[in-house]
């Protein structure tokens, strides 16, 4: 079967694995955000909308100020502000967190499209110049290693950042006092409250952090991988990140493994010119894999105990 030999041929190229890591990093950022948010007990299906918002505002800022770093910061803050809405609605007003998440995603899609039209009219958003994109950086010496150098050390600056954040979040969640607090709030908020932990502060912080990370991913997508904003350009990546979070059983490392698998699918999709299978069927892969995982084939995937339940203190 020539499909298999084609896959085999592609799998041997360093470029495919470089692209895999890049696609995985793009998914990893919102997935990490999702892990933090849900570990604190707030269901977050709004990564899609927060990414899209980050992407839009990063492009607008880059076009205005011609500085990718400042633009990335604007994208991060924009994602964080979207998350703040989700936080206020679902923590302060104790709304259903799924409804709020859906509303964020619809709001982000509508708002970015609306603003594109108000700011740019019927024309294109415009393209960011090559020198104003988030740069690809070759790490000296290491990038000369055969194969691995190409895969690991000739990446976008955001890919390095994502890998560092992966370690930071993993250590923070499972090796620090803050991580213990976040997890206890997500498992048993009453007990955490009794122990003197500020449940609301932890949850606000966790949700906003998820927005900052998703906003960075949006900026990476728009002014790193691409060089412009097109409506709905995240195209379900926030939901794939959600799938990665579940696939990885709500742990950063697990989510990263899932992101690598999904990223490989994306990379094969992009290299489709030499693979004779419909790219649309390949696009289903992350979702089908997640269904399989949820079906318990690879062991149960169980969310934090208080995930999705608004916290109402007794004395209120």
């Amino acid at each position: 079967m020539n499909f298999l030999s084609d896959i085999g041929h592609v799998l041997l190229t360093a470029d495919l694995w470089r692209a895999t890591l890049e696609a995985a990093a793009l998914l990893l950022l919102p997935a990490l955000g999702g892990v933090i948010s849900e570990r604190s007990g707030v269901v977050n299906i709004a990564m899609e909308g927060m990414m899209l918002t980050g992407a839009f505002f990063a492009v607008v800022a880059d076009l205005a100020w011609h500085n990718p770093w400042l633009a990335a910061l604007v994208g991060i803050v924009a994602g964080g502000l979207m998350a703040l809405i989700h936080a206020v609605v679902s923590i302060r007003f104790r709304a259903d967190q799924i409804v709020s998440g859906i509303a964020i995603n619809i709001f982000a899609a509508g708002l970015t499209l609306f603003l594109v039209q108000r700011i740019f009219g019927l024309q294109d958003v415009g393209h960011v110049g090559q020198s104003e994109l988030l740069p690809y950086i070759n790490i000296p010496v290491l990038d000369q290693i055969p194969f691995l150098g190409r895969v690991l050390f000739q990446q976008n600056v955001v890919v390095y950042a994502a890998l560092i954040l992966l370690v930071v979040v993993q250590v923070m969640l499972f090796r620090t006092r803050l991580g213990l607090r976040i997890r206890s709030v997500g498992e048993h908020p009453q007990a955490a409250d009794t122990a003197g932990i500020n449940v609301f502060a932890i949850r606000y912080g966790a949700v906003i952090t998820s927005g900052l990370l998703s906003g960075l991913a949006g900026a990476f997508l728009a002014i790193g991988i691409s060089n412009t904003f097109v409506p709905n350009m995240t195209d379900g990546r926030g939901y794939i990140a959600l799938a990665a979070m579940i696939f990885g059983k709500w742990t950063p490392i697990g989510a990263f493994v899932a992101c690598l698998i999904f990223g490989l699918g994306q990379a094969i999709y992009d290299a489709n010119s030499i693979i004779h299978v419909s790219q649309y069927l390949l696009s289903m892969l992350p979702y089908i894999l997640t269904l399989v995982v949820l079906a318990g084939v690879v062991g149960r995937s169980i969310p934090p105990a208080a995930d999705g339940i608004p916290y109402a203190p007794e004395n209120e």
Partner: protein
Amino acid sequence: MAASTATIGRRPGPRWASAARRVAGGFAVPLGSVVFAFLVGGLIVAVTGGNPFAAYQGLLCGGLGIACSTTTGENPALQISTTIVFFTPLLMTGIAVALPFRAGLFNIGAEGQLLAGSVACTIIGIKFSNLPAPILLPMVLLGGTLAGAVWAGVPGVLKATIGAHEVVTTIMLNYIAQWLVRFLIVGGPLQAANGFSASSPIGAGAYLPLFLPNDNSLIIFGLPAGVYRVHTGLLIGLAALVIFAILLWRTSLGYEIRAVGQSPRAARYGGINVARTIIVTMLIAGAFSGLAGAIQIAGVDHNLTDKYFNDTTGFDAIAVALLGLGSAVGILFASILFGALHAGGSVMQADAGISSSLVQILQALILFSIAANFLRVLRLPVFGQRPSAPAPTAPAAALMTEAAKAPPVET
């Protein structure tokens, strides 16, 4: 019965007064949410340099055919007909979300189920295109219904047997359906020979009849009858609402669904097979959504096109079900609202120069408002005295029943 507790008011007073209060309370939350959304939406338009009054005039004209500007020349009758075509599928996808809500399930998958129905309808309609209407039309509608049921049955079974969260599984199935549609009509087995991203048309026998003859010599409200696209799917949608209401309130299955939604544990003690109820609920919900998808093909488009890549009928259904508080009458009004918003969006864009994506913003604001119950926090008497957290077992369903009944019952 669990449901009858909602009608036993504790407050003394004449019967009509408590009934009136209940009706007012039932309408207050959704109406308040809509008002809130339009206020904030208007603010967003104003802040970005647009004229909110012109925008809303465009929406009103495009959606309901009233307040049309004399210079732009919209035909009110045509606008109303467009709104009806837009809201017809929402009646059924709204049920597909509202019914599982009653069982404490959150079906985000109405979109995927609708697409499954559209795909099945298209395949059957093309494969058997020579059959006469009395055979083919029921076949395509039934095929779509079954496909939708299967698409929703998977999350139902996964939920009932191993507890996989239906929100996540239905999201996954939405994307699988969307990519399936792209696969089928872009280079796939359903793509028509002309090379466009669309399937061949279904057989003429699979067309849902229009209300008005497709006859351009007949002039109705100043336009040829053929331009009005209102089709008999509307009658199916209205019948679906009646069936939904009867199913929910007049059958033992409906009682079981509501009991499971109120408390799965209590339902289990009461002898209800919870797993079976969950699966059946999802199958029925998916059937309604699949029927909507079949009706869109059989009544409106007649082939599967790239328009379905960006279809949002199944997502709008979430807002429809929440705004309609999960009741048949509520779904009807909420569907009309969102049908009118979608129809009005394009007129607003053309006449007032305000992007039709404002409609999405309004929809999101309505969702925020109804979920967060902002109005309740204002502590106006009509909205109930104190904010209270939804029950942990089924937040969205609890929210809905809580909002629907006023005064709340103490437990």
